[in-house]
């Protein structure tokens, strides 16, 4: 294949097509990466707007703005859109842009499938969002869609929801296969597995997780479809089925899924801390092994989401111990990041600020995760705002901060322009304050006894809910500001050098800024 490209190399050096067809027909990994990133940004803002509706309703006790039915639709769509539309496509976008450049490959291994896996996504979300306008309203059973609330008792739009989940799953599986094939086959000579940048490693592991669990999700929603339309009773107790079976299947997908949303973040943060500490990453090999062990453990801990469904004692003990074990490799990663900073030569540009906030706040989410693993205590925490605080700490200042850090870190390479450092830092501080004011008080109201997924609450939770809502509005507004910063950088700004950051290492910094449409058409030389 590479021989064919080389033959035409000199006389056939083409740039991007013009107009809309460039984006519709593109097979270029950079274009597709850009599409993924803009798409996820749009979804992030839509899902964020839904969060604003939720927090506005929860600003005070009593029903003010929306009705309980619509509230349930909002929490469901907020979760689905942020996970499947916001975080996952953003990481796939970063992988598209960066993996080929980091391993010295000219493009992704399967460029046409790459185009397909992106372009089916907008349809999936169009279908999902259109359910808001259907009779009976959008899905209203939470993003975990437990049966039988999501089958016998679901609004008619559930069928569209199932179809849209199938499309999202197909997109993820194709994206994941593409990444595995690219990494396994297209590394430049000399880039051995244990020489790959950590972001590439993190995505290799993530892609395997995706291939393993997305079909399980597809199976779960297909069984729902059968129950709803074809008279089966997989999850219907009245027909001899088992509602708990749904939860086992869902969380067998769901737990690896949460690591799908955090492993690429580990890769990103490792690169950024290394660059701005101007010191080689501490413990590269142990970082790789830690990610592998986290990925393997993720398959044997799913029932910790189900401690209250009435599992036998032996199962509760096993899943408690297995879950606690995850703290060991996760701890190793945090220690390695800190050891990388230790006796480094640190500067605090915007990506580094986000990366440091990631380490601190993700670790706090890890602590509350450890508390949730303790089964007897989980009987009190389960399905309260303590859980909401926990997973938002690992997802917002975890996954999403890492994506923002990545955008600031690599946008000079993508656009050739430096972002405005003053605005970037302002965005960081607004987000940092906003995220903590929003989610820290949720630990309190959860411990004090407020269940999650409720549109209204008892009076003793009023004060901290109001604080949380104020924080959420601040955080929401600062992301509109982020959009402004990104557009401003795309439009122009101080020209970036090829190296961009003094301490940056890796093949992507050896090409020009902005990165040419085609890079590494001949493999780079690695010593």
């Amino acid at each position, binding site marked *: 294949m590479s021989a064919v490209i080389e033959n035409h190399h000199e006389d056939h050096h083409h740039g991007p097509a013009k107009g809309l067809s460039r984006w519709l027909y593109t097979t270029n990994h950079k274009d597709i990466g850009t599409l993924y990133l803009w798409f996820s940004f749009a979804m992030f803002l839509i899902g964020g707007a839904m969060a604003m509706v939720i927090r506005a309703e929860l600003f005070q*006790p*009593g*029903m003010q*703005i929306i009705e*309980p*039915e619509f509230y349930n639709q909002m929490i469901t769509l907020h979760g689905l859109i942020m996970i499947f539309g916001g975080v996952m496509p953003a990481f796939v976008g970063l992988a598209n842009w960066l993996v080929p450049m980091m391993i010295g490959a000219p493009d992704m291994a399967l460029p046409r499938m790459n185009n397909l896996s992106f372009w089916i996504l907008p349809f999936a979300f169009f279908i999902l969002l259109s359910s808001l306008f*259907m009779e*009976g309203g959008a899905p*209203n*059973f939470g993003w975990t869609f*437990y049966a*039988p*609330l999501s089958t*016998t*008792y679901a609004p008619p739009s559930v069928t569209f929801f199932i179809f849209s989940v199938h499309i999202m799953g197909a997109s993820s599986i194709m994206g994941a296969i593409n990444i595995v094939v690219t990494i396994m086959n297209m590394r430049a000579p000399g880039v051995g597995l244990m020489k790959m940048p950590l972001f590439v490693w993190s995505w290799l592991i993530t892609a395997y997780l995706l291939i393993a669990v997305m079909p399980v999700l597809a199976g779960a929603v297909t069984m729902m479809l059968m129950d709803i339309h074809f008279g089966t009773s997989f999850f219907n*107790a009245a027909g001899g089925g*088992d*509602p*708990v079976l749904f939860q086992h299947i869902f969380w067998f997908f769901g737990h690896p899924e949460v690591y799908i949303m955090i492993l690429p973040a580990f890769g990103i943060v490792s690169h950024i801390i290394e660059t701005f500490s*101007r*010191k080689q990453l*501490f*413990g590269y*090999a142990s970082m790789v092994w830690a990610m592998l062990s986290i990925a393997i453990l993720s398959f044997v801990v799913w029932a910790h989401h189900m401690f*209250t469904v*009435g599992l036998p*004692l032996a199962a*509760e*003990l096993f899943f*408690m*111990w297995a879950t*606690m*074990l995850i703290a060991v490799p996760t*701890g190793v990663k945090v*220690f390695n990041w800190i*050891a990388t*900073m230790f*006796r*480094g*030569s*640190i500067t605090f540009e915007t990506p580094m600020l986000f990366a440091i906030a990631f*380490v*601190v706040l993700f670790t706090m989410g890890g602590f509350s995760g*450890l508390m949730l693993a*303790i*089964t*007897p*205590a989980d*009987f009190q925490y389960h399905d309260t705002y303590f859980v909401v605080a926990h997973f938002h700490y690992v997802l917002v200042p975890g996954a999403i901060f890492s994506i923002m850090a990545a955008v600031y870190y690599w946008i000079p390479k993508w656009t050739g322009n430096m972002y405005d450092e003053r605005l970037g830092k302002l965005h960081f501080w607004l987000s940092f304050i906003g995220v903590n004011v929003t989610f820290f008080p949720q630990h*309190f109201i959860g411990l*004090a*006894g407020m*269940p*999650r997924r*409720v*549109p*209204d609450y008892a*009076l*003793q939770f009023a*004060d901290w809910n109001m604080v949380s809502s104020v924080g959420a509005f601040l955080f929401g507004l600062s992301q509109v500001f982020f959009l402004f910063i990104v557009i401003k950088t795309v439009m122009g700004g101080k020209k970036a050098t090829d190296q961009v950051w003094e301490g940056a290492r890796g093949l992507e910094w050896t090409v020009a800024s902005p990165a040419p449409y085609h890079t590494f058409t001949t493999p780079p030389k690695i010593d």
Partner: protein
Amino acid sequence: MTLKSLKNFPNKLFFIFILFTNSAKADWFALNMTRGVTDISNEVFELHMLIFWICVAIGVVVFSVMFYSMYAHTKKKNPVAATFHENTKIEIAWTIIPFLILIAMAIPASKTLVSIYDDEAGDVNIQVTGYQWKWQYRYLEDDISFFANPATDLDEIYNLVPKGENYLQEVDEMVLIPVGKKIRFLITANDVIHSWWMPAFAIKQDAIPGFVNTAWTIVDKPGIYRGKCTELCGKNHGFMPIVVKVVEQDEYDEWVGEKKEAAFKMAELTTKDWSVEELVSRGEDVYALNCVACHQTAGQGIPGIFPALAGSDIALNNKARHIEILMEGVQGAAMNSFDYLSEVELAAVITYTRQAWGNAESGDGEIVIPKDIVDYKKPKI
């Protein structure tokens, strides 16, 4: 914002005023889990605090190193970075030490868990059944059965009147249990999955259709304890409180006697001669407790989800099918069987829906008396 809520805007401003002047009721100090009132809940609280302080200690150590290096190892103070990038000894240490800490956590956690698991029968055994959106309690030894319906007024929820002290935490009938006795709860559900949570007893068990989960408690302190449903169960999930009253044994015995007597009187009512007005008036109350959440106050339902009763052909002209739907439910739809209601309640609510909203005028106007339900329940030949 719906039209209805716009109309109420002045009331809302009034409410906001009340909220701010009355904020002593809200609680800035509701920051932590409460100890609860049972041995188990105390153990769980201790465990929670133990893990919390271990996490705080680890956090202080780890973040101090990090903040120190952010302070001391900046480019300004340390222009040339060190070059070390691995250290086998320290890497082994920070793998093994956390592992030992985890074992120290797992031992007390496992012990508590084992003591929570106990399937023996209790002195009092209560079957708890979750319905959309209320709880039913059946005392298995005494053959007492009743529903605990949410009791917070809609006007409070929609901010038309000030909220009471127990806003969203009050029911029309509390579950009574005797002090110092072992109570076992057998928890299940009739429609979707619910979860029965009583924080003061550290009990949270999912109520799952087709399964019976168990939980037990011994409470030594009389009092009223409040909890909530903690599994998303549809529209009114946020409005499904649980209230347990723990009383001395003699007060409990007295209550059991009263409940049995009331059940007997209810059975007598079945044979009484009923007038249409009596049935309609009783039926209106039954409707407000059991049907209004889905079929709405004017019987209009919610288009696309819950069918309208006003003007429905079954409510107008098909008495037999009307009875059948309430007794059997509708397969594959949210409508469940209501055969757990008494014959009087069923007859009254069917009559009410056949008479109200102009249904009597547009349809055959036939009423249903308790005997019709009794006949329906007789085995068919």
